């Protein structure tokens, strides 16, 4: 059986089994087993790629090149982490009697389904398939956003879906226009939308139509990535989604939508040269970083804080890709990699705090969590260091790489603004996290906090933290090779 198809089928099967009502333990075992095998299969697929093959399926509609392989591996990795944490999360809620059987089924089915859709995004070689896959992720995740079934969950889900659908409609229009730009060149069969084919005929495409298409595609997939000003659904969705789903959205979905943006960028560069989409990405990226700044300063909710951080990071990556050139692209792809390692720590530790305090609002949590839940708070502080790009952690290196490339290039003003925003963001993020974790334990005894235990969820957080720390000093050779391969794909060399 085709390895790539197996990679995609594994989570789909897991989802199907998860949807069937059944006893808890075996279902969880299948769930974790499915996600683990997905990760292993993704690794194997990437390994195939590194060995010189090009895994493909459906007549080239699915095809794995360097960029796909990188995103596949990272996404599957996050999927596994999220799965582990999901089980821990359910267990914890079980303890406090918060979760219904329906919700368990929902989570166990939706997480792998969401993952499957994301893997499909990463494996797609076809703009049509890409669009369908992204739409599928949207539909899978909207239920995760509405998972808690509170008033605010519905509100967030509605906003998420409407904005997402508008974005997808834009992306679809872009896809159609791109197809239209190659009338008579690309042909009419399915493979006409393969970017391998589009790239091969880049010179024959109608430039203006491509421009139009690129604008719609960037805005469309930018909505899914959460680039400003289409970012507005993010804080709501992140706050409402349960933490295991949050991390899938913040890391997996972000990587996948960036993947989509990159595919567009690659096509645009082949047809129009690097400036057109590069500048658009630069603009959207800078807007994202700038928009995130004030909201981090005035934030009132821990998970929304993470959402704005995620807007910031997608902005950073967009800036990196927009700056262009090998160094900046390497920086941005490294940023994606390190972000994939670092963000789960933040989400899981914040999720633990939120679960133990039964809310993620700062007011409800109160200050001084370090004395109540030392492990989770300590990990949150550690994650803050990572996420704010402090050395010696990975994101520092990638940000430095991007900045360095930026100062070498012509966009000095943009880079300077970007740097200034990073400084403010750092301060804001630290201020907010410090507000929660540090200080005297002022919580009154009327609202007792659940005791912190080294359960599966916390264990997953610790493991994620260890991996993130290690990743700063040592990235496995094959992963580095994937990053470099992805750089080659994006840079077209």
């Amino acid at each position, binding site marked *: 059986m085709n390895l790539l198809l197996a990679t995609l089928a594994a989570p789909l099967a897991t989802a199907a089994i998860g949807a069937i009502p059944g006893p808890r333990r075996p279902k969880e075992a299948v769930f974790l087993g499915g996600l683990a095998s997905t990760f292993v299969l993704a690794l194997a697929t990437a390994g195939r790629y590194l060995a010189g093959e090009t895994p493909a399926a459906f007549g080239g509609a699915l095809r794995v090149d360097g960029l796909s392989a990188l995103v596949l591996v990272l996404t599957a990795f996050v999927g596994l982490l999220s799965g582990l944490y999901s089980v821990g999360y359910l267990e914890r809620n079980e303890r406090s009697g918060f979760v219904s059987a329906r919700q368990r089924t929902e989570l166990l089915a939706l997480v792998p389904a969401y993952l499957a859709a994301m893997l499909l995004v990463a494996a797609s070689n076809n703009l049509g398939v890409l669009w369908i896959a992204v739409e599928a992720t949207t539909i899978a995740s909207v239920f995760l956003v509405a998972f808690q079934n509170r008033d605010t969950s519905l509100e967030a889900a509605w906003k998420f879906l409407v904005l997402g659908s508008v974005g997808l409609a834009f992306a679809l229009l872009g896809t159609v226009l791109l197809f*239209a730009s190659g009338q008579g060149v690309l042909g009419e069969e399915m493979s006409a939308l393969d970017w391998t084919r589009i790239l091969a005929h880049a010179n024959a495409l109608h430039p203006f139509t491509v421009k139009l298409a690129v604008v719609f595609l960037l805005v469309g997939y930018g909505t899914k990535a959460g680039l400003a000003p289409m970012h507005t659904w993010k804080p709501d969705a992140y706050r409402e989604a349960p933490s295991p789903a949050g991390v899938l959205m913040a890391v997996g979905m972000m990587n996948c939508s960036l993947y989509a943006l990159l595919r567009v960028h690659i096509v645009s560069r082949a047809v129009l040269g690097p400036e057109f989409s590069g500048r658009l990405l630069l603009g959207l990226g800078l807007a994202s970083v700038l928009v995130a700044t004030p909201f981090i300063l005035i934030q009132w909710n821990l998970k929304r804080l993470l959402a704005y951080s995620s807007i910031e990071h997608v902005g950073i990556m967009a800036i990196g890709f927009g700056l262009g050139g090998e160094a900046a692209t390497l920086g941005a792809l490294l940023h994606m990699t390190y972000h994939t390692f670092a963000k789960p720590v933040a989400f899981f530790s914040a999720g633990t705090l939120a679960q133990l305090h039964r809310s993620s609002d700062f007011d409800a949590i109160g200050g001084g969590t370090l004395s109540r839940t030392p492990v989770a708070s300590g990990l949150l502080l550690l994650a803050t260091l990572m996420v704010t790009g402090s050395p010696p952690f990975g994101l520092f290196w990638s940000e430095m790489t991007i900045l360095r490339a930026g100062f070498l290039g012509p966009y000095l003003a943009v880079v300077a603004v970007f740097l200034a925003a990073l400084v403010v963001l750092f301060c804001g993020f630290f201020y907010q996290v410090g507000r929660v974790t540090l200080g005297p334990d002022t919580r009154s005894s009327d609202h007792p906090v659940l005791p912190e235990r080294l359960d599966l969820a916390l264990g997953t957080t610790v493991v994620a933290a260890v991996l993130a720390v290690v990743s700063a000093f040592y990235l496995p050779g094959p992963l580095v090779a994937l990053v470099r391969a992805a750089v080659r794909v994006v840079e077209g060399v």
Partner: protein
Amino acid sequence: MIQDFVILCAAGMLVTVYLMVGQRALVVAIRLYGVQSLLLGAVGIAIGVADHRPHLLVTAALTVVLKAALIPWFLLRVIDRVGIRREIEPFVNVPASLLLCLGLTVVGYRVSLGMAGASQGVPHQVVGVALSMVLMGLFLMVTRRKALTQILALLTIENAVFLVAVGATSGMPLIVELGISFDVILAVLVLGVLVNRIVDRFESMDTSRLSNLRG
């Protein structure tokens, strides 16, 4: 001759959007959407017949069945269940809305001048109409408060996209088109489910009340 017909239908679609902007009864809006979809189907059939592209006929038939019949029926059912028939006062009043939409049409047409084969007419006209429809659909979503209107506007945008697919490219690859149609239906269903849940929970379909999440 065929070209003129296509352009006529496209213009008709644009008119339906104007009419949607111009009135507030939900049922009429749904019907207008149905008409719009029917016109889209007509475009598909005309081009399919003229250019001998059988798969266009398939998608056109699909469009008619789905969008001119099934979706309006589903939405009318939602209205019946909820019992809300009129849109309340939009954020921008009707005359101003129409004026702004005129502007949006100008924006759309201005861009479409750069399209390939602008001299031949069809792609240019079709893309102009489609872009105008996209912008106006979005405008509808911005100014109208009812969840149902927003779904309709979204569907209008979707129709505009299909108009480009049919009119400017003589049809996307069939399998892609089928996939997309399936996804659109799924999205509409999910939206419908959400609307139901929102109405259950908030006893209103007014999405402007959904503003508790700020900052």
